[in-house]
C-alpha cells in the first residue's frame, strides 16, 4: 500500500465494530472525512434520533512518562492480539511498566464501546490502580469495586479484586488480570471459575513471575505469550544480597540497616512472612529505630498508614506480603526478614525484589534477604533476576 493512511484505514476496516448495532461486516462500512462509520444503522443516526453515539468515541489516555521503545512495541503487539481476537499473557519483569502496556488496548476496547475490567487479587493494589487509571483516562468513567466498596458496579472501566468477579457474568469484552500468580488467585479453582465466567470477549493476563505451566499454555492455540525483560527506564533489576544471621543477630542487622537508611533518608520496607512475626519484629525494633509502623491484613487503618508512609511520615514499615505487589514508592529499600520461610516461594521473592528502583530518577536500591540459611527459592529468585538482567 503506497499511501499509509489508506493502509491503516483498510486495516481498521477489518476490526471496526459499530458501537450502536454491533455490525462488523465491512460491506456496511462507509468512509467520511477519513474515518469509518456504520451504514447499516444509518437511519438511527440522524438529528431525529438523538442520544446515540455517531461514532465510536475516541478515547485518549495520558501517561506521565514516555514509554520506552520495548514498551511501545509490546503495547502495539498486545493491541494487535486483541484486535485479532487472541488472548495474551504478558511476562514482564517487575517495574517494566506492565500496567502502562495495556493502556493502548484499553483505549481500543473503549473506543469500540466495549466494557473493560481490570482485576487484581489484592485490595490495596485495586485502590492504587483505580487512581492511576482515573488520571490516565480522564474522559471515561472508572470505578473501583472491592470488598466493602461496591455500591456502583457498572462503568466503562471497572477496577476490581478477583473476588468481585462473581458479580459479573458474561460481562467483560476485555478483562485484564494483573498478578495472576499472586495469592489468593493462584491455585484457587473458585476464583478461576469466576474469571472464566465473567469474560465475554478476550483477556490479557499480566505477570512478573508466571509459572512454567502458564507459559506453556500460552504458546499454543488462540493464545499469545509476550515477554519483556527490561525495565521501562532501562535500568537493571536489583540483585538481592544474602545476609545469613542467627537469632538476635538477625534483629541487630535489621536495626543497623534501618538506622543507616534513616540517616540517608531512604524509605524502607521490612517484609515478614506472617502477621505474628510482623508484630514481633516491630515490637522489638520500634525501641531502637524511631518513625516506623507495621502493616498487615488484620489492621483496619492499613490504607491510612500506607498513605502516611508515602507522605514521608514514617521512615520504615514492617509488613507482611500485603505490600508485596503493585506498590511503587520512590527510592525504596527492601529487607526480607526470614526469607528462608516456607511461605516465601520464588515468585514472591522476585516480586518483593521488584519493589526497588522502580522510578527512573532512583534506579538503584538495596534488596537484602535476612535468613537463617540460604533456601532453594532464594537461590532460584536470585538466578531469575540475574537471567532477566542478561537481557537488559
Amino acid at each position, binding site marked *: 500500500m503506497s499511501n499509509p493512511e489508506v493502509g491503516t484505514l483498510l486495516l481498521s476496516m477489518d476490526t471496526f465494530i459499530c458501537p450502536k448495532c454491533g455490525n462488523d461486516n465491512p*460491506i*456496511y462500512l*462507509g*468512509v*467520511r*472525512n477519513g474515518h469509518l*462509520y456504520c*451504514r*447499516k444503522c*444509518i*437511519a438511527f*443516526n*440522524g*438529528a*431525529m434520533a438523538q442520544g446515540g453515539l*455517531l461514532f465510536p468515541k475516541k478515547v485518549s489516555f495520558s501517561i506521565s512518562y514516555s514509554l520506552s521503545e520495548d514498551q511501545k512495541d509490546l503495547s502495539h503487539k498486545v493491541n494487535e492480539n486483541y484486535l485479532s481476537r487472541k488472548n495474551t499473557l504478558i511476562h514482564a519483569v517487575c517495574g517494566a511498566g506492565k500496567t502502562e502496556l495495556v493502556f493502548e488496548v484499553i483505549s481500543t476496547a473503549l473506543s469500540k464501546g466495549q466494557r473493560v475490567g481490570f482485576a487484581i487479587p489484592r485490595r490495596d493494589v485495586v485502590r492504587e490502580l483505580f487512581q492511576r487509571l482515573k488520571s490516565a483516562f480522564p474522559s471515561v468513567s472508572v470505578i473501583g469495586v472491592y470488598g466493602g466498596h461496591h455500591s456502583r458496579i457498572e462503568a466503562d472501566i471497572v477496577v476490581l479484586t478477583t473476588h468481585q468477579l462473581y458479580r459479573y457474568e458474561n460481562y467483560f469484552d476485555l478483562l485484564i488480570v494483573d498478578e495472576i500468580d499472586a495469592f489468593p488467585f493462584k491455585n484457587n479453582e473458585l476464583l478461576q471459575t469466576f474469571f472464566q465466567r465473567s469474560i465475554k470477549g478476550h483477556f490479557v493476563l499480566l505477570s512478573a513471575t508466571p509459572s512454567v505451566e502458564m507459559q506453556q499454555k500460552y504458546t499454543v492455540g488462540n493464545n499469545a505469550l509476550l515477554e519483556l525483560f527490561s525495565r521501562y527506564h532501562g535500568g537493571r533489576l536489583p540483585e538481592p544480597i544474602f545476609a545469613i544471621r542467627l537469632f538476635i543477630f538477625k534483629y541487630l542487622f535489621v536495626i543497623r540497616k534501618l538506622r543507616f537508611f534513616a540517616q540517608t533518608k531512604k524509605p524502607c520496607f521490612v517484609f515478614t512472612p506472617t502477621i505474628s512475626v510482623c508484630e514481633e519484629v516491630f515490637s522489638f525494633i520500634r525501641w531502637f529505630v524511631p518513625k516506623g509502623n507495621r502493616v498487615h491484613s488484620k489492621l483496619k487503618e492499613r490504607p491510612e498508614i500506607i498513605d502516611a508512609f508515602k507522605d514521608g511520615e514514617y521512615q520504615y514499615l514492617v509488613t507482611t506480603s500485603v505490600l508485596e505487589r503493585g506498590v511503587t514508592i520512590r527510592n525504596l529499600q527492601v529487607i526480607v526478614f526470614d526469607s528462608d520461610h516456607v511461605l516465601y516461594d520464588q515468585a514472591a521473592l522476585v516480586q518483593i525484589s521488584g519493589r526497588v528502583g522502580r522510578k527512573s530518577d532512583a534506579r538503584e536500591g538495596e534488596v537484602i534477604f535476612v535468613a537463617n540459611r540460604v533456601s532453594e527459592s532464594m537461590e532460584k529468585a536470585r538466578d531469575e533476576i540475574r537471567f532477566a538482567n542478561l537481557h537488559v
Partner: protein
Amino acid sequence: MCKVCFKEISPQSWLHLAHPKAKICSACFRSFSPHFKAIKLDGVTGLSIYSYDEVIREKLYQLKGCFDQEIAPVFLDFFRRELHWNFRKFVAVPAPSWEGDNQLREFNHVVEIFKVLGLPIQMALVKTEHIKQADLNFEKRQEVSQRIELSANANLKGKYVLFVDDVLTSGATAKACIHLLQQAGAKKIRFLVMAKTEKPKEKRKKETNENINTGIR
C-alpha cells in the same frame, strides 16, 4: 456493491453494461424514477432530474440528516456522462449552506451530489444566517436574498455558470442566487436541481404560477 441495498450488482444488467462504474443496482435505481423537467426561473433555464417523492426524500434525508456521505454519488450516477457533456463548459456553483451544518456533517451535501459530474466547483455563495428554508412559509421564503451573499473570492466574470442545488421548492433561493450570480458578471447561467417538489400546495400554486413556468419536456 450497491450503495443503497448492499447487494452485489449484477454485471449483466443493461444499465451496468452502459455504466460499469455505477454504484447503485438497477433495482434501486428504478425505484428512484427519474422525471426530467425543464424549468424557467426569471428567464434562466434549468433542469430538474427527479420529482421530490418519498424515495428521494428518504435518501436525501439519509445523506443530509444521517450524514451518510457514501450515498451521495448514487443520485446522478446514471446521468453523469450526459450531464457532463451538456455542461462541459460550465463552472458549478453549489447553493449556499450554513457553515455550521457542514461542519457537523463534515461534508457539503450539494457538493457531494454534484461532484460525480466532474465539473469544476466554485463555492461562490455563502449563507450569512442559519435559517432553514424548509421551516418557513412562502412569504418568508422570499426574504432569502437577505441571507445570501457572494463570497469574497468569487471569480465568475465572463464564465459559464451552472447553479446546482438538491431540492427546488418555491424557487426563492434559486432566484436569489441567480440574481447574485448575474451581479457577479457570469456570461451565461443555467441551473440544475436534483429534485423538484411535484405538487405545491394550493395557496402556493397561485403565487408561484406567476413566477415559475413549468413545462414537461
